[in-house]
């Protein structure tokens, strides 16, 4: 089943289209990595799709009323904000707001998935930046929506937390949900995502399996780098190797 369908989605800042006629569908079981250089429009695409920015064109999520949308898609914003010194459990439980606060098991599941059980009663604001990021991911997981849109979920996490987060997202996809995550670490994206969407100047320039999207020409044209691919017993490995421009 299709969880997200964008058709000609365009978001303008002034007259300049930051997202330019993007068409995209995300189905159940897909873990889509949204990649592209800084300013490619990744964040704007996610926010536009959710109706957090005014947009032209169509997004299947915009057809829903706000409450229904919150049950159809969870969103993890890039800005990591926890305004008050509330407990970790309280933050994660906020993810149940669209379900009128029902479902403490979902909170427990999210805490376990992100390895946060020992932190449950700690004040979220007293944790380190990376730990707070994991708490906020757990909040989005607790929403238990069919679709998860995450804006740079692994930026600033330690290697264990990065791998764990990518694993959790891959597991969600394997369970039949959909995940779209914007990611700068192409190596992580290549390993965990089922599909990559490459954005450049607001347009989708490539969309498909990671090996195919991270082609020599795409890397050179969009990122200005060359990379190294290998197949290992642990799965595919990709590493950017050098700057071209």
């Amino acid at each position: 089943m299709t969880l997200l369908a964008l058709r000609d989605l365009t978001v303008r800042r002034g007259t300049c289209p930051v997202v330019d006629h993007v068409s995209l569908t995300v189905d159940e079981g897909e873990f889509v990595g949204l990649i592209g250089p800084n300013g490619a429009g990744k964040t704007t695409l996610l926010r536009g799709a959710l109706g957090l920015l005014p947009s032209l064109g169509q997004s299947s999520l915009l057809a829903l009323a706000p409450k229904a949308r919150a049950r159809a898609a969870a969103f993890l914003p890039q800005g990591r904000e926890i305004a008050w010194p509330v407990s970790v459990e309280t933050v994660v439980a906020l993810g149940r707001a669209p379900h009128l606060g029902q479902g403490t098991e979902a909170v427990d599941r999210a805490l376990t998935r992100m390895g946060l059980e020992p932190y449950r009663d700690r004040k979220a604001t007293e944790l380190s930046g990376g730990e707070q990021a994991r708490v906020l991911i757990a909040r989005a997981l607790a929403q238990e929506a069919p679709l998860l849109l995450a804006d740079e979920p692994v930026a600033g996490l330690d290697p264990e937390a990065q791998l764990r987060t990518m694993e959790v997202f891959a597991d969600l996809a394997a369970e039949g949900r959909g995940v779209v995550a914007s990611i700068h670490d192409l190596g992580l994206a290549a390993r965990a995502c089922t599909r990559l969407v490459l954005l450049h100047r607001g347009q989708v320039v490539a969309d498909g399996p990671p090996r195919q999207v991270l082609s020599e020409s795409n890397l050179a044209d969009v990122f200005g780098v060359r990379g190294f691919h290998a197949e290992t017993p642990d799965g595919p490995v990709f590493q950017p190797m050098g700057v071209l421009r």
Partner: protein
Amino acid sequence: MKVLLSLLLLVLLLFAASLLVGPAGLGVGDSLAALFRGEGDAVVLVMREIRLPRALLGAMVGAVLGLSGAAMQGYLRNPLAEPGIIGISSSSALGAVLALQTGAAAMFPLALPLSALSGAGIAVLLILALAGPRGGAMALILAGIAISALAGALTSLVLNLSSNPFAAMEIVFWMMGSLADRSMQHVWLAAPFMVAGSALLLAMGRPLDALTLGEDAAASMGVNLTRLRWQLVIGTALAVGASVAVAGAVGFVGLVVPHLVRPLMGARPSRVLPASMLGGACMVLAADVAVRIVAPDQDLKLGVLTALIGAPFFLHLIWRLRGAEA
């Protein structure tokens, strides 16, 4: 729950204290009995017409100031916010000052509170015009600061041009904030606005919790931010506008009380709201009892005392914040 019950108990105790303290020097049993007894008696008159409205207004004014302070801090996600920040207090003060200056207040007792309420209403319209029907917290703060500054300047202008020194004096004293010599008429005038405003503000609990994670996260969880903002502005205008109308400018309550109760409520905005309401009532009742005990013959103004307590407390906050950041 325990905290709320303790606060409620404290409100009741302070309410009783407010009923029992005063220059008339009545006995405890006598005064309480007079509230429920028949007509005529001087004691009955003092209790029903002077002390009861004063105690009721103390609780009401404190409750709405504490509540709207908590709502403002929750919405702006800033512990330094207070109800005055969006310009409602200064606009209703300007309304009251105009009523005093023109002499309308002397001719018709309700002219002052009604004029203050109109000031609050005009402030809401100005906020709508300046900040737009949509838009974020920043636009609201900037509009509020502009309105505050303008209302403050106009108030100064009225004082400046006032040819009557007695009127100027009256204005200055009124602006200090007080609950002395209020009648049940004031209670009945303020109550409906305060109840409506409080209902709007108390209903902000869950959305404010979601807003802890920022505007985008809250919106993606189904919070209607535009509606929330109007709930805040109109709720504050009704509650604080009515409070300024009957008590003048009582500062620092809305800023300080949410800070005091926040750690007791696990910092959750939805739980801080009712606790601040009760805490605000405690603070104003206590301060209003204190002004009567500290300087029984001097008519010490309530707002002066809350500022005297509030400012050092604020310094203490900064001190602690500095310690935490170092």
